[in-house]
């Protein structure tokens, strides 16, 4: 800041409006919903203060909450697992494919589609064969009739079907980020390495990987936090059903707040979700700091 040599007042003039807006739009609502989490309130009538009763019930007596946390976590983990593949593909594209941009753009297409469209599209793909479901249709056509099933309504499978759609949708997004990262590494480095006898995998190990770590981190954080909040896709495709089998924390929160009209309970769930997101962001940042120190 001293480098800028401007008085703090001047900085404040530029920063304050945004900061204020941010405070009002983000922090105040968070505080309000934490407070609402302490109420027994249907969202309309008089609210009753019940202290930590909602939280207590969520942690001890709610049979839907913990499974939904588990599904949310799985969602996050799955969404991270695809990023190494994206990186690998990005490296290969950059090295071996001329005009790779076109390919990357094609992979990116699902990202710009609305989630509702994606959801409807995959719903039709997953449908039972009797309703024209493409996936089951293909399985039957190639003689794997025993593999056909009702993908979105069997409690044990439905969640994985949803993970897959999300992976498919965001593959292009992460690929683009990784691809840009890889492209931005100056070619001279590789040429220099070549002179020193490092090529292919070796060059990747000592040049690409260290330089891509910050980009990799961005991808991971985005994927992780994004999927902790996963709501729209699930809501469109299964609505959290059948019977809570595909509920994540956020769909369950919606269900409680607006369908069951237990606004206080829903707010308590929301507060817990904020804490989960926050703690994982901190953990990821911590882990990456160590990795960065190690590889560079």
């Amino acid at each position, binding site marked *: 800041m001293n480098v800028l040599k401007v008085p703090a007042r001047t900085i404040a003039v530029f920063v304050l409006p945004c900061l204020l807006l941010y405070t009002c739009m983000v922090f105040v609502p968070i505080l309000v919903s934490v407070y609402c989490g302490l109420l027994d309130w249907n969202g309309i009538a008089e609210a009753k203060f019940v202290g930590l009763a909602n939280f207590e019930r969520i942690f001890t007596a709610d049979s839907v909450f913990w499974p939904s946390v588990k599904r949310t976590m799985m969602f996050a983990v799955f969404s991270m697992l695809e990023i190494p593949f994206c990186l690998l593909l990005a490296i290969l594209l950059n090295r071996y494919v001329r005009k790779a941009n076109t390919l990357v753009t094609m992979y990116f297409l699902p990202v710009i589609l609305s989630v509702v469209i994606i959801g409807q599209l995959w719903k039709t793909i997953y449908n039972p064969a009797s309703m024209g479901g493409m996936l089951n249709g293909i399985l039957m056509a190639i003689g794997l009739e025993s593999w056909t099933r*009702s993908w979105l*309504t069997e*409690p044990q499978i439905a969640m994985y079907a949803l993970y897959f759609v999300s992976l498919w949708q965001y593959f292009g997004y992460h690929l683009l980020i990784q691809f840009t990262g890889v492209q931005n590494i100056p070619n001279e480095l590789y040429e220099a390495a070549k002179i020193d006898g490092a090529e292919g995998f070796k060059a990747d190990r000592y040049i690409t990987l260290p330089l891509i770590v910050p980009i990799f981190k961005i991808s991971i954080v985005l994927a992780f936090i994004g999927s902790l909040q996963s709501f729209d896709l699930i809501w469109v495709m*299964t609505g959290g059903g*059948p019977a809570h089998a595909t509920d994540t924390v956020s769909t369950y929160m919606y269900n409680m707040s607006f369908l069951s009209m237990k606004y206080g309970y829903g707010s308590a769930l929301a507060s817990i979700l904020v804490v989960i997101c926050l703690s994982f962001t901190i953990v990821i940042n911590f882990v990456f700091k160590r990795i960065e120190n190690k590889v560079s």
Partner: protein
Amino acid sequence: MSRTKMKAFAIVVVSALALTLAACNNGQSASPGNSGEPSRGTETKDVTITFQNINPDPSTPSYKMIKQIVGQYEQDHPHVKIELDSLNTDQQKLKLKTQAAAKEVPDITIVNPAAQMKPFVDAGLLAPLNDVADKEGLKDTFQNGLLNYYSFDDKLYAFPDGNNIEVVFYNKELFKQAGIQKLPTTFDELITTVKTLKAKGITPIAIGEKDSWTGSLLFMNILLRTNEGPNFLNDVLDGKKTFNDPAFVEAVDAFQELVQAGAFPDGATSIDYNAGGNIFKTGKAAMYIMGTWETGSIDASSVAGKVGAFQFPTVNGKGDVNEYVIAPGSAFAVSANSEHLQETKDFLHYFIKEMPKIQFDLKNAIGSGQKMKGDLKEAGYSELAISLNELFKNVKGGDLAFDNTMNPAIAQAHLSSIQNLFVQKEDSAQVAKEHQNTFEANK
């Protein structure tokens, strides 16, 4: 922290606080002042009345009905403008809840009967409409007892648009194709019919169970029979019965039997209400157990003329087929905080008065909540509509849907529990027990 930094920080905190406080202030001062009735002298002043409704689809008769009446009224009352806010049912429910939380209910809105509208009444958001009902005998145009579903403490809060019963629509052609001669009158016969249809590769009963109320509505038919009459849920509410009652357990068992017999389409829980209805309306399923409000749209679909309807059968020899799961419509309510309360009431009075006539002309009168005048046959109604109208004459009473009787938290737990029966077999006693536990926790 240096001095200037401290100062800057202090400014940030203070202004943030000021802003939020200002926001709170605004919210509070807005509501109470405006609720007084406008004086008679302001009658010629231009007013805009917001009319939230659940008929967004221009092809439906209900949409045409609202458009027509509003058009007429605006013509006769040039100083009144009616602004339509047309949403589909789910959106409207959500929007109203959000508006209610901010105490900004539109002048006219849509509510559902009994337990679903109770929170709004308790919060004092709806205006009592007894004066409107008494004016020109409007009350007497409604079927007996119907307005009770919308009254609390002798105060009427809304006027319903219909009064429907739940029946079994069936596709005569598909029944013939499967060689079924006789319509099922007992639950065992229904199961046999289902199996026969299934064996012929025909989906027996269409349903869209992603919207979980559909399965619950069907389930309530069974419960109405196994309980040998209505009021099971009310008895639970009054503490006279529990969900562990044999009638409830028996109903769960019967329902599971239906599921296990393969009555419903594959992946039923991923099909929403509209898509579920379309399975029947495109002739792909043989039966559709739904409210009579579907009559108009069945008559407008490709299976028109091939559809008949019968009463939900008795279960294990119990129940009376003239008792029905009843859906006393959705209803028009007025915001207690409306800025133009008197004008809104005047308009609503006109609207309700005109509704039966216009509905009749639009061939949308089956399941009307108001008494109908006129000959259906002469007016060109379908055979299905006429036969349903006959059924209405012998209605002995019945039950409301689960979510119209129990509070939303219990209702949601019930809905997801019934949805679960579509995907896996459960111990019926356990299902009953879970219902009871949820009920006690959310009483």
